[in-house]
């Protein structure tokens, strides 16, 4: 440490800055250690690792003089690791686990819960009992074991040895049973034997010693039902000898009986395989994937075509009202997307929407935008055309202005028609410039969650799907529903993450094409 400081002093001139820097790093480290300690006590392993990595990284950056350039991006790197890189790694990990409803706990958390389960053995330590009932409805049990020792049991409290005449306990009757217990009233044998609640009550402290009534004359100590064997990773049911094996995070018998709760565990490629093997999952997924390619394709083509047409029509610098027209046509782009989408949802409402009222008035028929699959898809495409064309209008008019005019003059001298010069000159030159943006737009629409989800939540629902899949769902909205909206099957982080990874590979492949289109790679290497 001392050596480092000396080194820094020789490199930089201002020792005061160095001291302030060291103090700041020290303060940060104290905070980080405090945070990690707390995370430790909560058992947040991943959080500890990630904060630990960031702390070490920041220390290296600020204490090693050679790492100076990284000081400029220290904060940015920390946030990048925390909220971008770590979530990606986590998603990849979860995709190979069964994380989700029924498997939210770790094995260490689940086993104690399983081991708390008890059963009433047919034989074993037994007691004769007498019941007492308080006015509030609480019960107490006076117990005598085979050796004549007496105990007092209450639900949720430890069972304690007690004798008639102790404080709060009345004198014994002829059978050695107290006539009264303070706050309780003694029930006579018949009432106690017919009490419906009594046989279900567990007296004593759970996890310690609990006693339940087995018959009118007998109460017995409950025994732990499930015995976990670490060596074989199995559980034996003490009540009937069934053996439960650990099958992908659920203890199950060979004939399909299971113990709840299950726990989080790595299940390999199971989530990925489920798509191909489970018909209920596969059916909607194939539909969703097909639509997931149709939707961005049509969207990009239609928005680009309209945007380009507008840019060409009004490209003339001295076209009347050019500025006003452009300002009005750009409006869809200026409204926050969520608001636009909800407005369209209202306008396309099948019963009350303005569009259907107009159509109905004009031709006496209007499509059911929200309930018929094909019309729902068309509606989404119309809305996306409205949302998306101004972007390409802006981009295309910028690009058109950058095409040198002497090319057109040359083509006209050669006798080319307007259409010919458009097809042979404008379009190719434009595509070179706008191509990357087309692909970027494709990628954006491939994951256009907001539009799909906010319009009609991906609906109308696909009939017969075991998950909440809809006809306008794309993969990403499907993922969202799987992970966050517990439908019939409950939340399934594992499955959702697996689809996320599939999406990542699709989008990644498209993006690679984009990189080949652009000169971004070369730009980085240039030494400006």
């Amino acid at each position, binding site marked *: 440490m001392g050596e480092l400081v000396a080194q820094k002093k020789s490199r930089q001139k201002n020792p005061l800055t160095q001291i302030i820097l060291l103090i700041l790093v020290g303060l940060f480290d104290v905070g980080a250690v405090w945070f990690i300690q707390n*995370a430790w006590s909560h058992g*947040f392993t*991943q*959080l500890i690792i990630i904060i630990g990595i960031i702390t070490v990284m920041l220390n290296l950056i600020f204490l090693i003089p050679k790492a100076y*350039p990284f000081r*400029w*991006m220290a904060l*940015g790197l920390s946030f*990048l690791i*925390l*909220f971008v890189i770590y*979530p*990606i790694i*986590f*998603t990849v990990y*979860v995709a190979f686990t069964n994380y989700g409803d029924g498997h939210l706990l770790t094995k260490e958390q689940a086993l104690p819960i399983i081991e708390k389960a008890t059963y009433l053995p047919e034989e074993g330590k037994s007691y004769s009992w007498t019941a007492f009932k308080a006015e509030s409805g609480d019960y107490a049990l006076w117990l005598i074991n085979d050796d004549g020792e007496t105990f007092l049991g209450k639900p949720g409290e430890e069972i304690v040895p007690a004798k008639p005449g102790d404080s709060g306990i009345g004198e014994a009757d002829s059978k050695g049973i107290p006539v009264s217990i303070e706050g309780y009233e003694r029930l006579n044998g018949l009432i106690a034997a017919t009490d419906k609640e009594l046989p279900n009550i567990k007296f004593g402290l759970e996890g310690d010693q609990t006693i339940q009534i087995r018959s009118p004359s007998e109460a017995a100590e409950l025994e732990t039902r499930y015995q976990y064997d670490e060596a074989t990773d199995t559980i034996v049911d003490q009540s009937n000898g069934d053996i439960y094996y650990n099958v992908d995070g659920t203890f199950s018998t060979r004939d399909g009986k299971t113990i709840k709760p299950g726990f989080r565990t790595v299940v390999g490629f199971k989530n990925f395989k489920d798509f191909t093997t489970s018909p209920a999952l596969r059916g909607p997924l194939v539909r969703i994937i097909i639509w997931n390619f149709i939707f961005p394709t049509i969207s990009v083509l239609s928005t680009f075509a309209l945007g380009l047409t507008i840019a*060409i029509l009004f*490209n*003339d610098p*001295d076209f*009347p*009202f050019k500025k006003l*027209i452009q300002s*009005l*046509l750009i*409006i869809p782009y*200026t*409204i*926050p*997307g*969520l*608001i636009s989408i*909800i*407005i369209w949802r*209202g306008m396309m409402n099948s019963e*009350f929407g*303005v569009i259907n009222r107009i159509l109905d008035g004009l031709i006496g028929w209007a499509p059911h935008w929200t309930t018929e699959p094909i019309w729902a898809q068309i509606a989404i495409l119309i809305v996306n055309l*409205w949302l998306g064309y101004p972007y390409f209008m802006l*981009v295309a008019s*910028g690009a058109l202005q*950058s095409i040198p005019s*002497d090319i057109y*003059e040359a083509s*006209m001298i050669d006798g080319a028609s*307007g259409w010919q*010069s*458009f097809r042979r000159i404008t379009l190719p030159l434009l595509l070179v*410039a*706008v191509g990357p943006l087309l692909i970027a737009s494709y990628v954006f629409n491939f994951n256009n*969650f907001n539009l799909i989800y*906010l319009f009609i939540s991906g609906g109308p629902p696909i009939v017969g799907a075991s998950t909440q899949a809809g006809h306008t769902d794309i993969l990403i909205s499907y993922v969202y529903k799987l*992970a*966050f909206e517990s439908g019939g099957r409950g939340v399934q*982080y594992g499955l959702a993450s697996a689809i*996320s990874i599939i999406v*990542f590979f699709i*989008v*990644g492949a498209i993006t690679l094409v984009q990189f080949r289109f652009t000169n*971004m790679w070369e*730009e980085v290497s240039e030494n400006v």
Partner: protein
Amino acid sequence: MSSMTQSGPSLWGSQKFRKRFGVGVRLVIAVILIAFSVFPVLWIISASFDNSQSLASQKLIPVRAGLDNYRDLFGLNPDYKFGDLFYWKWLWNSVKIATISTVLSLSITTLAAYAFSRLRFAGRVAMLKGILLIQVFPNLLALVAIYLLIFQTGEIIPGLGLNSHAGLILVYLGGSMGMNIWLMKGFLDTIPRAIDESGMVDGASNFRIFWTLLLPLLRPILVVIGILSFIGIYGDFVLARILLNDVDKYTLMVGLQIFTAGQFDQKWGVFAAGALIGALPIMITYISLQDQIAGGLTAGSVKE
């Protein structure tokens, strides 16, 4: 040759094409397109001033014009019963979160872009490419991890956990090392090195050069990136929806979305009023700065 240059350097140089699509025809097309683009906005303006409130009876020119919807929106109508409305609170939350996030994220982006543009270090090119590649992984897919991260952080520091604006802002800052670094670096690269060198001669530190010489020159790109990122965060829905639980903590977008769920046709007028107020400032900013923003959108892709 001279007659051709007169007709302007454009596609419209062709006489035949020009005749067919004269200015008149193009104006008609413009009107149709404008109708398509503006209709939803006109419709929402009309709905917001329509006292009948319901989706079904609304006409483009309100039959019963009035300010009832605005009264409902601002909580001036004690009888209103369709959902919780904390409109000003939502708007304030949105503006606060977007402003703080934008300022912080702009600072982070600019500092990092300076290093990428002006300093030379091992791993520079690899990191720039990496930043671009990471963007391929859509943010939404990582929601589960981000949710758990914020949840766990909140168990230790409650002020940064779920349902806190600070936690949400932190998550937004995760995006500062993204595409904007490329935009900013590209702009910095165009500023001549001679300016830096003049500062170095005077013995100024890197930070002093950045702060006093370069930062003032960055203003145009700072405005564009700032506005785009403000609008992006202001319009964000998913992250805010997942991380905020209480109705008075919502941002405007979350508030409006949840407000419109269920009995939508009954809430249409009030939604229209709220949507209009929420969208107007953004629309005005956008339209008045459209040329700068368009420049920012195409920077790096459209070759001049």
